[in-house]
């Protein structure tokens, strides 16, 4: 099946080469980081996680969102999604690859990564995160590949695949819950120490992931002969709308608790994000942009005519992705460390090599995604023909 990835148009190869160049630049910067240490990044002793861990968090959400196609299809027998489950599963696979790479590039001592397996530590959430992410990736590779292979041969996939599909549904929820637990159980980090964290993560994942999937479906329709379908995109848009409303609602709950209780520890990180604290306010323009994007996306999604129009829907999805990315991929991590345990503020902004490494990892993920989507769409068109 993989041979389908070797036959493609000029645009296909051009895109892959473009991604390879970005991957090469990222790899070069990573080597520089490997030899010089993480001091080449914008992180510091006060803000000791940054862009990398933010991306990990964001893309765990994208990976988990695959379940929003799988669940209606297999639990509610919503047949229309049968056409695009493969796109959801392969998106999950490439998102998890990005997640694992983001953890890897964040490690101070990557050569010792196997210590996590050599000294298994059940009391560490990171240990469980490693397990759930890897298993979820394997589940999606096995399920996606086998279902696609069966479709190619015109037979029904084997029974044991169905078992794996049922396992993969709660598993998708687990990966983002465990990722939220990385943050939500740390004493003294007020912004993260909230029991709604996992719920917020899931809601933002279930809007951002399907929004990305809608954009991918539109691209697939444009560049391949496979059409993911109008109804499919319309149903996805409904899911995105509900999830985004819940996501914004959960965020407003956080604002209420912080500002009605007026406990400084709860207010400070939010004030830092939207206004700045102790003269450091570099994230404020971003957070306000995210707010505007969120409002625009909600208007476009809630109004039926703009939601059903694929042009305006694409705009809604793009601004929604931008809004959730700023919130989760940038603000969440930095605000968790701000103010620091001494209630002072240290500024964080990623450096150029740090951004290039991040882009390199993203390019790797999209490279895998392109190849997997090429295989999937080629086979789907062959079967249809």
């Amino acid at each position, binding site marked *: 099946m993989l041979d389908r990835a070797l036959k493609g148009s000029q645009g296909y190869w051009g895109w892959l080469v473009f991604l390879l160049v970005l991957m090469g630049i990222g790899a070069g910067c990573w080597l520089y980081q490997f030899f*010089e*240490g*993480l*001091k080449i990044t914008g*992180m*510091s*002793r*006060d803000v*000791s*996680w940054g862009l990398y861990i933010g991306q990990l968090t964001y893309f765990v959400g994208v990976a988990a969102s695959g379940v929003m196609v799988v669940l209606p299809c297999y639990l509610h027998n919503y047949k229309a999604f049968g056409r695009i489950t493969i796109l959801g599963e392969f998106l999950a696979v490439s998102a998890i690859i990005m997640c694992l790479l983001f*953890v890897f590039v*964040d*490690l*101070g*001592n*990557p050569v*010792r*990564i196997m*210590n*996590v397996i*050599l*000294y298994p*530590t059940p*009391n*560490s*959430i*990171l*240990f469980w995160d*490693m397990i759930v992410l890897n298993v979820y990736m394997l589940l999606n590779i096995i399920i996606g590949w086998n279902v696609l292979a069966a479709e190619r041969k015109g037979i029904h996939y084997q029974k044991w695949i169905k078992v794996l599909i049922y396992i993969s549904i709660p598993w998708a929820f687990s990966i983002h819950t465990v990722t939220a637990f*990385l*943050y939500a159980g*740390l*004493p*003294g*980090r007020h912004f993260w120490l909230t029991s709604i964290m996992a719920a917020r993560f899931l809601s933002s994942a279930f809007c951002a992931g399907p929004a990305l999937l809608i954009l991918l479906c539109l691209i697939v329709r444009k560049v391949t002969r496979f059409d993911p379908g109008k109804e499919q995109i319309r149903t996805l848009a409904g899911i995105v709308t509900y999830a985004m409303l819940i996501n914004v609602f959960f965020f407003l709950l956080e604002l209420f608790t912080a500002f009605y209780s007026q406990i*400084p520890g709860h207010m400070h990180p939010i004030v830092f994000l939207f206004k700045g604290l102790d003269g450091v306010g570099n994230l404020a323009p971003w957070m306000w942009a995210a707010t505007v994007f969120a409002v625009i996306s909600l208007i476009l999604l809630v109004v039926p005519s703009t939601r059903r129009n694929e042009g305006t829907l694409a705009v809604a999805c793009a601004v929604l992705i931008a809004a959730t990315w700023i919130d989760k991929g940038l603000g969440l991590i930095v605000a*968790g*460390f701000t103010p*620091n*345990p*001494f*209630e*002072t503020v*240290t500024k964080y902004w990623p450096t150029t090599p740090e951004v290039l490494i991040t882009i390199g990892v993203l390019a790797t993920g999209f490279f895998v995604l392109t190849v997997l989507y090429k295989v999937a769409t080629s086979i789907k068109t062959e079967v249809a023909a």
Partner: protein
Amino acid sequence: MGLDRREFLKIAGMAALFGLGGKAAIDIFAPGELEASMEGIPVSKGKRWAMVIDIRKCLAQQAKDKDGCKQCIIACHRAHNVPDWGDPKIEIKWIWQDSFEHSFPDQHNPYIEEELRHQPVILMCNHCVNPPCVRVCPTQATFKREEDGIVCMDMHRCIGCRFCMAACPYGSRSFNWGNPRKAPKELNPDYPTNRDYPERCKGVVEKCDFCVERIARGELPACVEACDKIKAHALTFGDLADPNSNVRKLLKEHYTIRRKPELGTEPNLFYIV
């Protein structure tokens, strides 16, 4: 399987318990250096090590020196090969000073004595009874020694994920953002300062370990020794499990506070204000 570091530390502790200091112990144990203050304290026998920091005595000593006293910091950082990066964003500190206001943010009080508010307080790892850093470490590179409660750090197992830094509510953990050997030469002319203490590579976390290597030999932690040497006696190290110990006596006689006690970490550092 060979000895791992953890086992080695345990054996070293036991050896000291039976007076079997190794050759290295004798080499370093220069005669005449033993401070009078540690007489009568069975340093290698503690069940729950703790420290009482007398801020008043420390401040009195600070006032004597026009640049402020930093003897404990200098001694510790020399003993443990802690480089000076000259950059607060990536600095490594096992023991350091910060203002009272920053050290005890939960004691918020805008009308507290001006004197105290901006005065430096000595800070280091709290060696919590319930350490969040140990809970989150995915490789057990940081662990609590059950026999004496010291929160140790195996810098040769650490993968540098920095989860412990996110978990520590006291900012007591430092990461090697760069290679310690590449720290600016003009700030570290004689680095490494102690050839008998292990060096570490970039990308690992480190912190105060109550001088496990010294107490195994029956010596006091380097900071305490340095403070006693100048007769300030602001730092008292002892066994909290022993009701008759020096630290228990101080705790009985003085009102003491701990950093962020509401988090349930149970710090083993106590401050006399």
